[in-house]
């Protein structure tokens, strides 16, 4: 006799005191959420991370859609017709004023933002691809490949990054965003490589890898189709923080005159240009500088939010 017959039998007895049967009613059942949905929910609950995300969305819309929306779309249009047109203070027509040759600062900031954000994102993508590839090979194969690759990583990490970037940007780049992207990416992959390598070292010993190998999965597929998706969490966090890091790197390079050079503008470039007029009009320096600060702050907030959302050991709060 199974349990349902037993319950039915007891329910028909009229005078007995029976325990209420706790059914799994639709209100009690938890909706089945995918892993991505769980992570997204945890991210959304983190107020600081949401502030950062909104800030980033605002920044991207402002820099990429702003010129067409507000009409301030010509950062190179000089206006030296009268003294009051140059170094003007904020007005409705020029919300951030103008610089010493009458260029609208808001237009320059938006154009510079396009370049800075693009450089940050693209160099991050290249660096992550490089770092994940190197880390995956080093972690999966181990042995001498691991040794060689990690020695190579140590060499790059041993020289202070700014000095190295200064020398190489002065000698090899020509001031276009493309060369700066490649330069920053070539030296930015080291942390991701170490991260991926340590993840692979632990994941390699798990049973699912043994099971996959038993059914005949080849090495390359094992690395990138089986192990890598499980290591994605820290990689995503590192990627977000790498964008902020790269934006700072590019702005420092441009600030000293070694990064992006005119006619391309970036936020660091704008600070470099504005520095000569620092005593006359400090806002030419501070507005692009604050844009850099704001971008990096939002990226850090989002990165930390992602780290908290992806951490499997944090209990649901």
């Amino acid at each position, binding site marked *: 006799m199974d349990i349902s017959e037993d319950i039915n039998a007891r329910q028909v007895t009229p005078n007995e005191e029976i325990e209420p049967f706790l059914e799994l009613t639709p209100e009690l059942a938890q909706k089945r959420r995918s892993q991505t949905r769980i992570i997204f929910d945890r991210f959304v609950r983190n107020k600081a991370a949401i502030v950062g995300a909104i800030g980033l969305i605002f920044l991207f819309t402002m820099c990429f859609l702003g010129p067409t929306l507000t009409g301030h779309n010509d950062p190179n249009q000089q206006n030296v017709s009268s003294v009051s047109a140059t170094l003007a203070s904020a007005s409705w027509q020029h919300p951030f004023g103008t610089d010493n040759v009458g260029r609208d600062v808001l237009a320059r900031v938006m154009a510079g933002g396009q370049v800075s954000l693009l450089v940050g994102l693209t160099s991050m993508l290249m660096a992550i691809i490089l770092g994940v590839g190197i880390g995956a090979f080093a972690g999966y194969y181990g042995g001498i490949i691991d040794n060689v690759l990690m*020695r190579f990583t*140590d*060499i790059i990490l*041993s*020289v*202070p990054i*700014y*000095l*190295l970037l*200064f*020398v190489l940007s*002065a*000698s*090899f780049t020509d001031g276009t965003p493309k060369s700066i992207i490649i330069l920053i990416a070539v030296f930015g992959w080291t942390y991701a490589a170490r991260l991926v390598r340590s993840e692979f070292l632990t994941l390699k010993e798990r049973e699912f890898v043994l099971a996959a190998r038993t059914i005949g999965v080849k090495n390359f597929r094992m690395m990138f189709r089986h192990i890598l998706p499980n290591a994605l969490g820290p990689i995503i966090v590192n990627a977000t923080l790498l964008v*902020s890091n790269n934006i*700072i790197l590019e*702005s*420092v390079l441009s*600030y*000293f*005159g*070694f990064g992006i050079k005119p006619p391309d503008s970036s936020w660091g470039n704008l*600070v470099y240009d504005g*520095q000569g007029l*620092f*005593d006359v009009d*400090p806002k030419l*320096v*501070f507005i692009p*500088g*604050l844009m*850099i*600060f704001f971008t*990096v*702050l939002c990226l*850090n*907030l989002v990165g930390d939010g992602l780290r908290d959302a992806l951490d499997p050991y944090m209990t649901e709060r």
Partner: protein
Amino acid sequence: MGRYIIRRFLQAIPLLLLISIAMFLLLHALPGGPEAVLFNPHLSAAGRAALRARFGLDDSVPIQYIKWLGRSLTGDFGFSFATNEPVMTVIGRRFPATLELFSVALVVALVLAIVIGVVSALRQSSATDYVLMTLSYFGISMPIFLFGLFAQDIFGVQLHWLPVSGTQTLGYQLAPIDAFVDHLEHLIMPMSVLAISYIAGWSRYMRSSMIEVVHQDYMRTARAKGVSSTSLIFRHALRNAVIPLITVVAIDFGAVAGGAAITEGVFAWPGMGSLFIDELTRRDYPVLLGMLIISAVFVIFFNLLADILYAVMDPRIRYS
């Protein structure tokens, strides 16, 4: 313990050799080749021929490397293009200024980071904690040069409290005590900017380390045994919590040879960082390469020191 030190030391030597090879290859990879890097642009043809023979540029690459390595180990990095002095003299002249700026900044940053981290950790989730951590978050997100420019504008230009650049006021012959005070006034801003950029990261690290230590079982045991609060914090928690931070500080100190380049550039502080930037615009390659090698040596040395320090402070590492 001794064996651990020797083992780590032996591991550092191949890395140094590999870096020397990388630098040597960089020498050949820069545009213009080794000639642009080693020869003064104003040399005559006869001078060039003589230097070619001296540097052995007609030899094969491995032999060149061995000769170059021998020269570097004796400290002969060549002669500066700009001033024709030996590279080591040029760098050595600037080293004290950087050392002063860096050491003072790091000591101040260490003390403040420990204080802020401990206070934040002990008052976790309070208003103080929230404010301090938000400030440190801002500190991490702000690029150093921007912060330096802010400080220059507020304290130098607007308030006229502090001088904005250099190590001393020019044009005056001050009495020793006044000169010292003047020097201190010049030191405060660059030192504070550099210190704050380190405090931001270190205080968060200290805070999380302290929180982890305070929740350990041995803290609860000590409290149950009746250890006073002060003693509990300083003698039990702090000693253990500060270990990872000290190693991070040691590693960050390894960047002393050129790590303050940005701050020195903004405040025109005559140290190795600003030397690097000046020589860069002049394409003075012997000095640049010499500085790269020296800074790499410093970094490796201080990484080694950090590992040894960690083993000294945490006995568990020695026996693993």
